[in-house]
């Protein structure tokens, strides 16, 4: 009994912390199942399983260059993760982040190639233009949902396919480099490129932007009225409505903001890593954002960690495919499995019940003892 009292006196052993621990446990288990599954897939498919697994698990930290490129991959998906986080928090399944990322890169390329500005300002203008254009486009599915009651999800997916073609049209008709073999834009002027933080690492200023955005978005979502209203609408739209929140303004705003972030991420990606626009299809960064938003439980605070995990998995898979010829697309199977286990209410639910029951018993006995 003494032991019990000590445990109870430990700060914060309440239902809330139990829930928190439980969701941590569930995330941890889901991720472990994902990793275990990747190892099983490799064992079945790979010609050289030991080497493949080695590269998958420790490849990204084996040398400095790999470690750098881990962060190169981390930057864009952190931002798209935040973008999807904001949209999903309002319970709006807008999947335009994928299209916005691509079109943001198009807009940034257009501005970079058609405007002459000094080095410090040029990329900023490119990124802001991309964010503005994509933010406005993100309003299309949002307004369709709010004004007409159409599915914002289907609308946003149609928009993804439409902006892909529109972007390719813009690049190949106005900015195409005739000397390049495939459809690609002319080379960006030096002034438009993003500053590299560490020489020859490909880590650009976007890293700082991403970190700042994590803090800003977290602050916005949890410490401002707008953020609170977005979350309120997401949790209970009717309640939000009765307390006087303008549902339309909040949902549309959340999707404009999310799309703008994704557009800016695409702009920074192309200006930071490439010398010209060379995408020919959608890039998948928006879908990664969806995975991350779910993995982080729609909380911006956990996005960086989730993104690091996904980037690590990707980089590991990339290295593996380079060294042993394994394909990298199996990462999406792993992503799907992790998502399912993470979202499954039933997964571990019996364990959770048992723990909750035990806790309430503990509290009861403690109260009795204190009373008696």
């Amino acid at each position, binding site marked *: 009994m003494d032991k019990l009292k000590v445990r109870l006196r430990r700060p914060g052993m309440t239902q809330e912390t139990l829930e928190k621990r439980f969701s941590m446990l569930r995330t941890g288990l889901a991720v472990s199942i994902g990793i275990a599954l990747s190892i099983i897939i490799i064992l079945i*498919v790979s010609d050289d399983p030991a080497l493949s697994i080695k590269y998958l698990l420790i490849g990204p930290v084996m040398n400095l260059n790999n470690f750098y490129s881990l962060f190169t991959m981390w930057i864009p998906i952190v931002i798209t993760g935040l973008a999807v986080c904001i949209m999903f928090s309002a319970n709006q*399944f807008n999947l335009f982040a994928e299209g916005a990322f691509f079109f943001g890169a198009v807009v940034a390329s257009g501005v970079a190639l058609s405007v002459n500005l000094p080095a410090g300002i040029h990329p900023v203008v490119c990124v802001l233009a991309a964010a503005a254009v994509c933010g406005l486009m993100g309003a*299309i599915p949002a307004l*369709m949902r709010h004004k*007409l*009651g*159409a*599915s914002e*999800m*289907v*609308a946003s*997916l*149609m*928009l993804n*396919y*439409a902006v892909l*073609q*529109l972007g*390719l*049209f813009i690049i*190949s*008709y106005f900015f195409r480099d005739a000397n390049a073999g495939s459809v690609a834009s002319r080379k960006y002027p030096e002034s438009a490129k993003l500053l590299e933080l560490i020489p020859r690492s490909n880590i650009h200023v976007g890293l700082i932007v991403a970190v700042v955005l994590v803090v800003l978005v977290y602050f916005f979502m949890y410490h401002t009225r707008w953020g609170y209203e977005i979350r309120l609408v997401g949790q209970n739209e009717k309640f939000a409505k009765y307390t006087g929140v303008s549902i339309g303004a909040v949902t549309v705003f959340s999707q404009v903001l999310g799309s703008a972030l994704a557009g800016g991420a695409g702009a920074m990606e192309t200006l930071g890593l490439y010398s010209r626009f060379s995408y020919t*299809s959608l890039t998948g960064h928006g*879908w990664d954002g*969806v*995975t991350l938003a*779910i993995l982080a439980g729609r909380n911006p605070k956990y996005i960086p960690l989730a993104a690091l995990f996904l980037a690590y998995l990707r980089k590991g898979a990339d290295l593996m495919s380079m060294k042993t010829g394994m*394909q990298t*697309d*199996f*990462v*999406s*199977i792993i*992503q*799907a*499995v992790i*998502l*399912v286990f993470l*979202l*499954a*209410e*039933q*997964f571990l639910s019996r364990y959770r019940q048992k723990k909750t029951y035990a806790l309430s018993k503990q509290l009861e006995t403690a109260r009795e003892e204190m009373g008696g």
Partner: protein
Amino acid sequence: MNEVLELVFSTSFAFSVLRLTTPILLAALASVISERAGIGNITMEGTMLISAFMGVVVSAYTGSAWLGFLGGVVIGGLTGWLLSYIIFKLQVNDILAGIAINLIGSGGTVFLLFALTGVRGISTSLSSKVMPSIDIPFIRDIPILGEILSGHNIITYLSFVTVIVIWFLLFKTALGLRIRSVGENPDAAKSVGVNVYKTKSIALTIAGVLSGMGGVYMSMGYVSWFAKDLTAGRGWIGIAAAAMSGMHPVGAMVASVFFGIADAAANTLQTINLPSQLVLMIPYVVTLIAMCVYAYFRLQRKKKLARKKA
């Protein structure tokens, strides 16, 4: 302009409309039956890819187009069943579960293709079969109509037959009544002894089979190979078509033909001197506009009804 009109009012254009309607129609029917059972099923795109892949692989290894078709349809049904398991037994939100299945559809198939053939992204190294095209006796001899209606892939005919089958299933059978009742009011259905989980699970499995047929059509009819993102959003367009159909199989057919026309227009206009990217935008932009128009009229109707009641 004359050139465009000539292209659009040709028999080959009408023929390609039916050809392009097929996958959209099957996806739309899958969406209709899921929605009738009260489930937001968004897995058509992923299921179509999985089935398209399976059809190619099975037909290549067995040498039989029909076994490939069967393989694709069965895996489609299994995917539908898996979705129902994830949604109801593991209790995952249906949209998020759908996102997971679509992830498997897009990435998983490309990975498995590589694991099997060692080639990235396209299955041309597999000698897969194609489902037969059929010339319909008598009809093929009718002048214009024959050229439009005859000579299609067998799955195209199957898809239009399926409209009737699904209509019959939903509105004329006991199972259909159960499916509609669990969709409209699961508690009431439960109280009269309907097994809600089983019924919804059956509906999703049927939806999977339908998407599966659409997928097999893409890889063994529309083209003769499997490639990354072969379906190019047709599953999603199918969902949009279903949303405009009033959740009725015949409505779904009308809406799908409409999108088939948009798709065929894009294909046809590519042959004349227009920027191909802008032409390829047509189906998606048309879908967006059609969604708005439909939603607008539905809203007006609702308002009118509300006014009448008041």
